[in-house]
């Protein structure tokens, strides 16, 4: 599959995530859109890893064994970070809900003044 | 790239037939698990249980199923209609999906073809099982939430946190096993156990932790907090009626069957025939495979009996006891088991 298909698919998903962050006010949905953006990046990384593997194996059969694995490990680490981020982030949202009884991000502008 | 025409149609047909057989068999077994549950409950309480429908009551599951089919179907007005229907179907789907990677037996020869009695021998077999098990909670959560009922919601939340907590200990207990086998494919693990000993001999603690976690994942007593009758009015499926309720109950029994199969595969040698050298009797052909399947089913039946035996013995845990057991007892035990196994493997290699 040509690589630009994957690039366009991933950027479309990423843009949908961006739009979601911009137009929604619910903190949880915004958070979910961030996850969506992370995932689109993951998809792109995996596609690129397979692209480099394909290029490398065409050039040289012996070196090719490990080409592209680092991208897939990056995806793995991104998932680790995402999981950590979600656990902290959701704890923050729960705390916020406990204090202001809403998950509306517009209520969170108290630091302004 | 595969061309549509280049697909091995015979293989596809073979797999489709196998899938159909496996699904039908697990539904059939789940049906008779309900009968077994009632009979075993009765026997343990000095009663004789259902014995009216057919000889010894063996048609009882059919009668129960018919009853569920003909009951009035009620969808609460204030419920979320789509999700209300989606919940039980998801529960059933995830329950049935796990059986794809279980090796039900060795190879058999039919019409000149060697047919592997496993739907898919993927090299991530155990992880696949984990993924599906962790998805299984959606059926409970969606059903509990969409009923728009406080008790259902509470039960769904309880169930979700219970399953997530026990998944950790389950995964950790399996890591020790995987360190020994060096493969995630269930078929390879069975083949290894056929050559040496059953894994339960090397990993008794791991098996125990896995078994307790399997009880929790299947929502069986003593961990049936999400369907506690006397605290939460039946729990997450309180608003369900007719066949939708039947799906939830059925999914639970299918889950029990599948998790028994997984345990038998991982720790008790799968379709290995105990005290019998299969490789010396390859001339038996298909009969050997059939004997293997029978052995596997026997092991599963023993596990199912164990599940039911525990259900009718042990009372339900309190919620804090459940969390304590999961986080403060099982996870440290599983970690210790993992460390010890790793150390022993290192030591033996030197």
């Amino acid at each position, binding site marked *: 599959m040509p690589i630009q298909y994957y690039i366009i698919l991933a950027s479309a998903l990423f843009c949908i995530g961006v739009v979601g962050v911009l137009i929604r*006010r*619910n903190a949880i949905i915004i958070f979910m859109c961030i996850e969506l953006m992370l995932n689109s990046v993951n998809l792109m990384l995996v596609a690129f890893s397979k692209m480099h593997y394909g290029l490398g194996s065409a050039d040289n059969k012996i070196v090719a064994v490990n080409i592209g694995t680092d991208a897939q490990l990056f995806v793995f680490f991104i998932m680790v970070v995402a999981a950590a981020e979600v656990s902290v982030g959701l704890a923050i949202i729960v705390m916020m809900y406990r204090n202001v009884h809403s998950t509306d991000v517009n209520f969170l502008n108290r630091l302004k003044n | 790239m595969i061309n549509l025409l280049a697909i091995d149609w015979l293989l596809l047909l073979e797999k489709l037939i196998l899938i159909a057989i496996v699904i039908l068999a697990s539904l059939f077994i789940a049906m008779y698990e309900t009968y077994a549950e009632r009979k075993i409950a009765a026997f343990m309480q000095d009663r004789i249980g259902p014995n009216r429908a057919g000889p010894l009551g063996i048609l009882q599951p059919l009668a129960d199923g018919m009853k569920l089919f003909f009951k009035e179907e009620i969808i609460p007005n204030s419920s979320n209609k789509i999700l209300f229907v989606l919940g039980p179907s998801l529960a059933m789907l995830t329950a049935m999906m796990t059986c794809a990677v279980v090796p039900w037996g060795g190879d058999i020869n039919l019409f000149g073809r060697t047919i592997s009695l496993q739907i898919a021998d993927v090299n991530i077999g155990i*992880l696949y099982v984990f993924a599906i098990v962790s998805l299984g909670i959606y059926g409970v959560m969606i059903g509990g939430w969409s009923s728009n009922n406080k008790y259902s919601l509470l039960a769904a939340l309880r169930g979700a946190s219970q399953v997530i907590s026990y998944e950790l200990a389950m995964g950790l207990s399996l890591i020790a096993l995987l360190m020994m086998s060096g493969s995630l494919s269930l078929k390879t693990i069975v083949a290894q156990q056929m050559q040496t000993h059953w894994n339960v001999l090397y990993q008794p603690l791991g098996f125990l932790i896995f078994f307790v976690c399997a009880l929790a994942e299947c929502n069986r007593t003593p961990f049936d907090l999400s369907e506690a009758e006397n605290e939460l009015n039946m729990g997450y499926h309180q608003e369900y009626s007719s066949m939708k309720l039947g799906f939830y109950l059925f999914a639970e029994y299918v889950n029990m069957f599948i998790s028994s199969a997984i345990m038998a595969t991982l720790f008790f040698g799968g379709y290995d025939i105990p005290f019998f050298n299969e490789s010396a009797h390859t001339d038996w052909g298909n009969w050997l495979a059939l004997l293997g399947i029978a052995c596997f089913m026997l092991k599963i039946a023993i596990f199912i009996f164990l599940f039911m035996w525990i259900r009718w013995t042990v009372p339900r845990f309190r919620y804090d006891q459940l969390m304590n057991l999961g986080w403060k007892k099982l996870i440290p035990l599983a970690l210790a088991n993992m460390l010890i196994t790793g150390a022993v493997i290192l030591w033996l290699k030197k």
Partner: protein
Amino acid sequence: MTATEILFWFLSILALFSALMVLISKNPVHSVLWLIVVFFAISGHYILLNAQFLTIVNLIVYAGAIMVLFLFVIMLMNLNSNTEPQRNSLIKLAGVIGGCLLLTVMVSAVRSAGEVSNNRALMNEGDIGLIQNLGKILFTQYVVPFELSSVLFLSAMVGAVVIGKKE
């Protein structure tokens, strides 16, 4: 059209459609469920790219754990479409236009990058995505980041407990 291509288009359309539904759904629970569908579609893409380990990790971590947490929090707060705050339509329109512009920039960048467009991602072959190869690299070359990420996890866990605790 080969089977792989059909699957690719199907999964892509499914991913985009459900990502849009995440935005459009009024009810947060529906958003969560659509997002799960997106993750499944992306996992399907990973299978097509023969990255089996990532497929299953994606399912376990995202669909099995993270989304359950989201669902859990939403159910705990009892959010539904009635309590959902709405931005005014002008800001919504501005957001959509901004997103579309971003997409346009990205797509045109891809189109103008000529050398990339000749390359293809290998489908259904190449076993770098298998758990054995990834594991070897992970525990030799990447063992320090791996341990660091476990420390990160632990600190995130402690942090979540500290934040979530009632004082």
